[in-house]
């Protein structure tokens, strides 16, 4: 979420109004070092170290020294069908969560932007999935999906829609079932972000458009959407990355099962590293994940920027 601002700014090329260009005087180092040292030692350092590890045969609990093996891990990865299967599942999951999440959140944000009575309740409820530990979200939905004592099957039975099933263990139902949970878990944050974007569009524009006799859809297309677009773009890109890299939710719901049908890349890499001790190989997986996702995002953002300059901004 922190990123919204950053992406925003750089996307729009808006210079900051405040702050001066003077370099900080010597006293400033005293302010900067307390944060800079931990960042360098515990974040940037490990990141670089992690990239290096991807080119080694590092394993846990081994006495022999770790060796530099060049691109061998990547060669192995290329032929690792299980990894690419998990990669494919990761993409299906990330798109499957991000798109409905965005559409639902947009709908809710538009509703909450109206003068409706239950607004406060919706805002209060929206907090619940957001503030909850992911593990708890997973637990909750295990209770909902429980084949015997779960509310979902009971509701289906009451509606006469069959006897229900074991959603999380079914080969064909497991992935859709966890995707629904992903949508639920991330909707509030997306909603609140979009709502904040909506509340920054000038009211007068809406009123002027309404006076010109523009219907709801036209007002949305010509006034709301153009103003909301940068925020929508940033939050969608972010949600995609976060979803692709997610772990805890699915770990608690299915641990990647049944038969690997919900094994996201992070679950795969986690098992590889901390169950089988293949540190180098798991690091290589991480690196491939970053590379492919960055590429996809770059294509997405370039595409969006292009059709932005190519008109449509009435």
């Amino acid at each position: 979420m922190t990123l919204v601002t950053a992406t925003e700014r750089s996307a729009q090329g808006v210079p900051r109004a405040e702050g001066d260009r003077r370099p900080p005087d010597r006293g400033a180092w005293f302010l900067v070092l307390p944060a800079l040292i931990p960042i360098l030692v515990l974040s940037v350092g490990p990141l670089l170290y992690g990239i290096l590890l991807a080119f080694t045969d590092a394993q846990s609990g081994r006495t022999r020294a770790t060796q530099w093996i060049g691109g061998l891990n990547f060669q192995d990865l290329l032929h690792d069908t299980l990894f690419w299967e998990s990669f494919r599942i990761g993409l299906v999951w990330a798109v499957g969560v991000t798109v409905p999440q965005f559409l639902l959140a947009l709908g809710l944000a538009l509703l909450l932007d109206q003068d409706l009575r239950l607004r406060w309740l919706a805002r209060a409820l929206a907090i619940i999935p957001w503030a909850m530990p992911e593990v708890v979200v997973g637990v909750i939905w295990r209770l909902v999906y429980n084949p015997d004592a779960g509310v979902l099957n009971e509701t289906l039975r009451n509606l006469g829609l069959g006897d229900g099933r074991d959603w999380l263990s079914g080969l064909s139902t497991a992935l859709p079932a966890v995707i629904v949970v992903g949508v639920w878990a991330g909707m509030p944050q997306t909603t609140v972000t979009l709502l904040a974007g909506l509340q920054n569009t000038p009211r007068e524009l809406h009123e002027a458009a309404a006076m010109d006799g523009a219907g709801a859809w036209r007002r949305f297309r010509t006034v709301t959407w153009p103003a909301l677009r940068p925020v929508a773009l940033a939050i969608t890109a972010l949600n995609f990355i976060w979803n692709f890299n997610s772990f805890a939710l699915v770990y608690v719901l299915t641990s990647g099962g049944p038969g690997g049908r919900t094994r996201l890349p992070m679950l795969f890499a986690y098992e590889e590293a901390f169950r089988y001790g293949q540190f180098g190989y798991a690091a290589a997986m991480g690196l491939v994940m970053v590379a492919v996702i960055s590429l996809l995002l770059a294509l997405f953002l370039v595409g969006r920027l292009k059709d932005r300059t190519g008109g449509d901004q009435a």
Partner: protein
Amino acid sequence: MRTSTTGRTGQYAALLAYLAFLAFPFLWLVSTAFKSPRELGSLHPTWIPRDPTLDNFRQAFDEQPLLRAAGNSLLAASAAAVIAVLIATPLAYVMARHRTRLAKAATGWVVVSQAFPLVLVIIPLFLVLKNLRLINSLAGLVLVYVVWALPFALWMLVGYVRAVPTELEEAAAVDGAGRLRTLVSVTAPLLAPGIVATALFAFITAWNEFFFALVLLKTSDKQTLPVVLTHFIGAEGVADLGPLAAAAFLATLPSLIIFAIIQRRVTGGMLAGAVKS
């Protein structure tokens, strides 16, 4: 803008559908937590427990070291929040007030750090912490949480610093106050609410965190609440529903309460620069 009555009705119907979707899983958790074992075993579960009981809570505490885990979580999350805010505030100040290469690099790092899959960071961290003998120790976990909390802490704080007018600081400087003096006596008090909100948010994030805790903490006397929660789900994926629900309910309460208090500030802080500009 006027909306027709049918439009209004449609809007309320949609809003109610959303409310149901958002609320029902949580309500089901609460309902399950208070159900008796007999009712949990029944094939036709009800929304309202017929004879509500606290047995699940008692059993949850019996089965797993919940109190200990909550203590571990509390310790790790508060330490991480306090340290993160203490070291982030000065850097955020410099980032907000000076457009230097350093500030830009820090901003770039904030952005990049969001995109990396955690596995690429946790493996080397695991090796480093192992050499420092900080595996299975809360101190090691706190170190990781501090760095993990820094990006968004920085980002929120930069927004709060920008909201403090520079004129106040300049006035203090004219009056002969040094940089540190100005910071402590002029800027810090105005920043206080933002700093508190940032710390609380850092606390919740650490309280809820699972992946690092799962990897770094080995024994159940050191584990945090989210990790211990997963112990209620057996190896075969079979869970004792009642105690699981009870423990999950308890684990959520603190972050729900804190989040309800700071929610407005968090979104405000996050979006301060984003939508305006």
